[in-house]
Each structure stands twice: as C-alpha cells, then as structure tokens.
C-alpha cells in the first residue's frame, strides 16, 4: 500500500526532499548556528510563510479538490492562533506576576495571583475579571486541544448546517465569508473576552524559555512549521489519493452525478471541510507565536480571500501548487510592501511599490485567472510530460 501510494504520487517525494533541503539550508545559515547569514527576523518570516503554505494546502484540498470555495478558512487559522495565544499570554503574565509577588514578605494567595493576572491582561479593555473562555488558559494541554477542537467543532457545525441544506457554489462562498466577518466583528468588541481590537500580544515570548535567545526560538518554530508542513502535505496527499480522493474530486466535477452513484456527498464534504479547518487551526497556532501578535483584523474576510488568491496563483488541484503560490505571493508581497523593490522613475511620476503593489497584484490576479487557470504549478506539467 505504502509503495503504491508513493509510486502514484512522485511529487510527494520531490516535495519532501525539497522541503528538507530548504529547512536544512536555513537552519545551517541562521544566527542560531553561528553562521548568521540569515537574520532572525527573516527566519521568522520564513517560518510564518511555511505556516501560510500549510493553510494554503488545506485551502487547496477544500477548494481545488473538493470544489468548495471557502472564504472563511482564515477564521479557523485565527482561532488556532487565539487558542495558543491565550495560554502564551496567561502563562507569561503569570510568571511576571509571581516574580512581583516573590519580592514581598507575605506569600500571595491563589486569589491574589489570579486577580493580578486578570488586571495585567484585561486592564487594557477596562476590566480585570477572567471571562469564562479563559477557564483553561492555565493549561497548555487543554489550550492545545482547543487549537484542534474549536476549529473542528465550528467547521463541523457550520458545514453540517450548510451542506445539509445543499448550499453550494457562490452561496456557500458568501456564507463562509459571512461567518468569518461575524467572528471578526465579535472579537472586535471589548467584552468579547479576548481584549477587543488590542488582540493578544507578546506571543513571541515563550513561557519557561525567557532566557533562550529569540534566534534559537525562531529556528525551533521554523523547524516545527516545516515539520507540520511536511506532515500536512503527506496527510493530504494520502487523503486525496485512493478511492476517497476520487470521490472527492468527483464531487468537485459533478456533485449530482456522484450523489446519484450512491455516495453520501454531504459526509465527504463535511469530512474535507472539517479536516482542513483543523489543519488551518494548527497552522495558526504555529504562525502567531512567530508573528508575536494577533488581533481581530487578522481574520477579516479579506485575509481568506487572499488565501484563495495564493492557491489560484500557485495552481489549484495540486498540493505543491498551493505551497508555491502561498510562498511566492506572500514573500513577494513582503518584499514589495517592505520597500525592498526599487522605485521606478518615469520622469513625470515615480512609481512607489508600497503604493502600487496591490494594483499590480490585483491585475496580475485577473491575468492569471483569465489566461493561466492552472497557475504557476501548471508550468511543471511542461517538465513532467511534454505537451503533445
């Protein structure tokens, strides 16, 4: 079975080899190993990009293979980030509070510690009580479970409702967009219990590793992201191969026909939708400790649309296409908006890429949709088999 799986998907080996080589190279060249050719901040950027690639694969499976254009997967990404961010913020604040108390002659009661932590975290929204959703914030294990469970449950309930009433096509896209909009609007409120538009911050400081330099932390997260991407790739490659994958792709191409063949289409869609939501949550949980801050703006509908953009530019219906698209567009985007691209002087007007990058991206997206529906990944077809 294993042999046949790899044999039918030679791209998996190629991808894993490329990812391993890339990870190895970055690790060797990073500041943590002493070579210092790649700065810590760039290692973080690369680590974050790997997480974006992971959610892009999930998006590719749900859209490119199953035909569900979800414009809400970044909501799951954000939930994963919030879940891990709650623990990071709680544990770090607890450490600071305990240190403050240790200087005093009288040891603190549990109530005093909890009040002090609440004050530190929620002072910014004018509160000091712990909302109910923070009940498990002191436990890393439970919060890690939430990274998986909450996106999974949300996707399960939402998907069950949507697929059951046979909401399909653009309707489903709009509905998923409404879901992520509702979530971000909810989180923007100060009384949502997650610090309103301040979001959660200071997530790059890992509790228990205060003395470890950021260079080491960044490379550890980079490696973890690379491992997650590799594992995610392998997992999805396995999911979409074989009989199950054929059914899923059949649903994409003609849902009614698959239903008439006797398959329970809704279950397949629900499975794909939920499993990709879980992977999105995991990607978010790895992303935000590297980004350091999460706020409700991150899960605005526009983010999920960009996700679709990456997958489309990279090439739908092939996992490596999603990875290429996400990495290419997000790195290019940070190069352009970060002022890396040189300005073009036209004599009468200077094109500053910080202003014009989005125009370029938008238009190139139109061009890709119109003329290169297979995206960048389509170029590999010319390498693998000669067009005849």
């Amino acid at each position, binding site marked *: 079975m294993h042999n046949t799986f790899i044999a039918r998907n030679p791209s998996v080996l190629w991808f894993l080899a490329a990812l391993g080589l890339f990870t190895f190279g970055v690790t060797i060249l990073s500041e943590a190993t002493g070579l210092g050719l790649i700065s810590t901040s760039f290692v973080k950027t690369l680590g974050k990009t790997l997480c974006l690639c992971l959610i892009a694969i999930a998006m590719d499976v749900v859209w490119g293979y199953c035909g569900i*254009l979800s414009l809400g997967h970044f909501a799951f990404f954000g939930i994963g980030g919030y879940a891990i961010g709650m623990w990071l913020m709680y544990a770090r604040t607890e450490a600071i509070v305990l240190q403050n108390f240790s200087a005093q002659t*009288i040891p603190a009661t549990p109530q005093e510690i909890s009040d002090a932590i609440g004050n530190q975290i929620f002072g910014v929204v004018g509160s000091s009580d712990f909302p109910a959703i923070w009940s498990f914030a002191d436990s890393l294990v439970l919060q890690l479970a939430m990274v998986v469970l909450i996106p999974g449950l949300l996707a399960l309930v939402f998907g069950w409702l949507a697929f059951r009433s046979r909401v399909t096509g653009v309707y489903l896209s709009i509905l998923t967009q409404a879901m992520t909009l509702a979530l971000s609007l909810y989180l923007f409120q100060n009384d949502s219990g997650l610090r309103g538009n301040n979001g959660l911050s200071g997530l790059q400081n890992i509790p228990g590793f205060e003395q470890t330099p950021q260079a080491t932390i960044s490379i550890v997260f980079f490696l973890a992201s690379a491992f997650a991407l590799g594992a995610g790739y392998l997992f999805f490659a396995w999911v979409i191969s074989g009989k199950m994958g054929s059914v899923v792709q059949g649903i994409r191409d003609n849902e009614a026909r698959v239903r008439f063949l006797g398959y329970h289409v809704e279950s397949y869609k629900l499975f794909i939708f939920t499993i990709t939501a879980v992977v999105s949550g995991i990607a978010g949980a790895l992303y935000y400790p590297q980004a350091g801050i999460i706020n409700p703006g991150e899960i605005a509908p526009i983010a999920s649309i960009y996700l679709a953009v990456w997958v489309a530019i990279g090439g739908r219906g092939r996992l490596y296409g999603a990875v290429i698209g996400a990495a290419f567009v997000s790195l290019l985007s940070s190069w352009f908006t970060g002022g890396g691209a040189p300005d073009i002087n036209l004599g009468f007007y200077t094109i500053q890429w910080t202003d014009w990058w989005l125009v370029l991206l938008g238009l190139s997206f139109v061009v890709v949709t119109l003329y290169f529906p297979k995206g960048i990944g389509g170029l590999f077809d010319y390498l693998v088999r000669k067009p005849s």
Partner: protein
Amino acid sequence: MRILLSAIAFALCAMTAQAQDLQTLLQDNAAQIAKPSRNAIGPVLDDMVATGLPQVPTFLEQWSDKNVWQNEDTGTFFIATKTGDTLTLTDIDTGAQSTAPADGFKQLKPNGGVRRVIGTALVQFQLIDPDTTRRAAALESIARRPEAAQLAPLMASLDGEDDPALRARKENLITILSARFAEDPADRIAAIEALAEETSVESRAVLNQILATKPGVATTLPDANIATQYDPMADPDANHAALVTADLATPLTTPDDIRAAMEAHIIDGRVGNTPTAQLNTDAARATAYATLAAAGTVPPLIGIPERDNALQSHVFFDTYTEDDPAITTAARAALDQVETAVALAQTVDLGLDALSLASIYFLAAIGLAITFGVMGVINMAHGEFIMMGAYTGYVIQLFVPDYTIAILIALPTAFAITFAAGVTMERLVIRHLYHRPLETLLATFGISIALQQLAKNIFGTQARPLTSPAWLDGAWVISDVIQISYIRIAIFFLALFFLALILFILKRTRLGLEVRAVTQNPGMAASMGINPDRINMLTFGLGSGIAGIAGVAIGLYAKVTSEMGADYIVQSFMTVVVGGVGNVWGTLAGASLIGGLQKGIEWFNPSNTLAAQTYMILFIILFIQFRPKGIVALKGRAAAD
C-alpha cells in the same frame, strides 16, 4: 419670599417713591447700583419694578449692556455712549441729551451673575414687549432657567398676547412653571396632569425634577415623603458603602487591608503565631488576623457576617425632594403615562430608522441584484463601483461650488462613469468567465483590490467630504422623539425610484424582455435574433451604473473613503441572497429584513453596533439554512441553476 419682598417694597414705594423719579430711587440705592452683588441686588430691582415707571426697562437693559455711567462728583447716573473722549449723556428720566468729557464719569460694569438677575427682572417687561421676537426670546430664556418669580408676570402677560404661536408657548410654559412653583397644591396637580398629555423633553424634565429623589439611610424610617424603600441585601456592597459614608458602619476589611496588617506585624518571621510562608491561603490569613485582633494590635475583622448585621439593622430608602406626597403621586402617574407615549413614539422612530437603513441597503444591493441576481455574475468589485460613484460626486463638488447643481450633475455622471467601467470590465474579463462563476469571483476580487489601491493612490487615505446641499440639511422633526434627517428621506425616495425604474426596465421595455430571455436561455434567445453579448454587456453596465448612483447617495451621509465599498459588499451580497436571487422584489424584502433586524437588535443593545452586526450575520447564516433560496424563491424551471 420674593413676592413677599416685592409686596413690602411696593408698599414702601407707595409711600415714598410714588412721586419720585427713577434717578431719586437710584440715588437712594447708589452704592448697590454702582457696585451690585448678585445676592443683594434683588430687592433694589424689585423696588424699581414696583415704581411702574416706563423708563425702568430701558434703564435695566442699558445697565445690563454696560451703558450706564455715573458722574463721579455728583453721583448722578446717566445712560451714555462713548465716542473718543466724550460721552453723549442721556438723562435717565427726561431723556434730555448732553455731552461731557469722559474723565469725570465712571462706567458701571455689572458682573455676569448680576446681569442674569437683571435679565430675570427684565423678562416681565419683555413678555409684554410689542416686538414678537423679543417676546419669543423672553419665553426661551424662561424655558432655559425656570424660576418661581417668573410665573406671575407670565400669567399676567397671557391676556394681552395676540400671537397664537406665542400664546400657545406661554400657556405651555405656565403649565410647566405651575407644576413646579404654583402656590396651591391643587394648581400644581392640575398642571402636572396637563403635562401627562405631552411627550416633549421639557415636560418630561419637569416631571423628573419634581420626582427627584435623594438616597438616605437611617436606623428607623423617617417621617418624610419616601419614594422607595429597598432591601438592604439586594446590593449589599453598595448599601454598606452608603452606611460607611453616613458613619453608621465600619468599612469592610479588604484582602488588601489584611495583607497590609500581616506585613505590618511580622515578628520573627511569624504573624500571630503563623509562619509567613504559610500565609498563602485566605484561611491561614484569617486565622492570623484573628490572633492579631484578639491581641488588640489590629481593629477587629469586618467580614461578610458583620456587614450583613449592619445592613439588617438599618433601613435604606429614597426620599423625594418634594415634600407633598399628593404631588409626587400625581407626577409619578403623569410620568408613567408620558413614558408609555414616549415608548410608542420610540417604536415609530425605530421603524423609521429601520426603513431608512433598509433603503440604504437596497440602494447598495439593487445593482448587485441585477448583475448577481439576474445574470448570476459575482462581482466583488461592486463595492468599488459604489466608491467610484462617491468619488465622482466629490470631484464634481471640487469644480461646481453650488452643491445642488453639483449633486444634479454628479448623479448622471456617476452613472455614466460606472456604466462605462462596468461595460469595460464585462468586455475584458467577465465575458471570458461566464461558465466559471467561482473564478469570476476571484478575478473581480483582483479588480476590486486594484481599484481600491488606485483610489488610495489618487485621493489619499483620509476621508473626503461629499457635502449635501443646504436644503437637505437638518431633520424632519415630528415630535421630540420622532425625527428623521432629510438626507435619509431623500435616500428612501431614491430607493423607491430605482425600484420602480428597475421593475419598469425589466418588465416593460424591450431591453428588459431581452435580458430576461438571455438569462433564461441564451441559446434560444440568440436564435430569436437577440445578441446575448450585447445584452449581457448592457445589463452589467446598468447594474454597475446604479452602483455609481448609490455611491453618490451613500457618500452624502457617510464619509467617502477608498474602503467604503468594502464596507457594503458583504452586506449587499447577503441582502441579495437573503431576498432571493433573480428577483428585484426579493432584494427589497432582503433589504427590509436586514435593515429592520439590525435596528431591532441595536434597540436591545444600543451601545454595541458591532454585536448587532455579529448577531445579524449569525441570523442570516441560520436563515439561509432554512430558506436556501431566499425569501422570494423562484419556482419551477426558472429556479434551476
């Protein structure tokens, strides 16, 4: 008191001042006039008024305007105007004019407080002034600062009033003043009952003032006009705080107090026999504190039981500042009646708000109802067409200074520009994607972010104003509660107009017929001699053009920014989807439902529009589950995708 004083003054005047002129009276009180104080000037003013001399109001006005000068040698007062170094003097009684150098005179400058007292004394003259605007001004000044002394002159002035509007206002003010200040309780109750018929803010304020209470706490209930007596345990902490403020109880010993006591009494690493290291639970601290308290080193612990004991042995109540229970009872009944009427009016107002929000959503979504609903094309750049329309209006206002003409030019121009943009987009992009709807979504999204950034590059990130013409400023005020701004009314009629126009075009014109034919079956339509390409192009242009006009309308009441389109796009799509795709009536139903729902939720939780939007979207998600095809669903073959 005032009235009594003035009566005495009048009696005195009858004896002494009858034959006198104003100057003599002024000289009798020269010190008070020259250096008036707010508290002492009252009787002097009453004396002046009591003389009934016709020159009194003029003098008071001029005095208040700082036009009265005093001769420093003789002490005589004059009304004077200063020109250079000379004063033109007017005798206060005879009106005889003369001039004198300003050097020997001193200007009287009554301070603000005194001027207000003078103003109150003047009101009774202004109330019978022949000039209606001055009478109206006097009434407004009474309305702003109602005082007991104003009631009598106001009632006296009523008979001579011939202007119907002012007469009504006077009667209204008499009611308000009588409710608070009338001598006879029966008069007050009658006035209060009359107030129950009104919903104005003024009358509600009067009733609330009569019903003003102050909280009190005592061991036994005092003999006063008690408004409410409440359960001490209902809000124990707040009530205990009131007890502490009234020096009837000792404050609770807070955890911080306990902690401070511990820190202050550490002896050999122990607090009251407990090692400090063990003081990390509340129980251990309580034991240690009890030991300390028993030794007398700290005050005894005031905990929850002590607090409750203190609360149980006191009564907590609100007393009315008004002493007469008959009056407060009448006022309470009147206020209840008024509040019922106000609640009713608020419901109507909420309905109007919802209607206006619905018409805004309808305007934003009606273009989409054509491109998405009729043609089935998802146009994510629809919001950017709204933005283009709004910016068109802004640019035209830069060149056309008259706002009315600018708006009249802007509406067709915005239509033309977005029509052209829509047609161009259809030709270049959408035409190639008719069989790939999901990709249309992504391509138009690309156009959307490009247009947004382009607008940002051209117009900058700050909001640009689109000013409405002056005749659209202000609001239509039906009562103090029900009012709606003219812009919203205009948008409502604009929405109605477009509903009619779209229905007319789709149902009654050749174009509409061809549009419906192409939508239902392009192949068959083509074989009938209709050019589907042309029809698609025109339909898309029409939908986009209407978005442009909606942009002008929305820009009038919201700020014009490059992101304004994005704010409406999700809402617009939901309006179309909820209403039912492919049906203009459906869009109307969807807009009404969403607008009404949003206002309704905001009414329950007015401070939080974000929550309202969240719950609304959740509702819509659920709604789609149960009516996936929207409110107005197409039936039969037309419903097939």
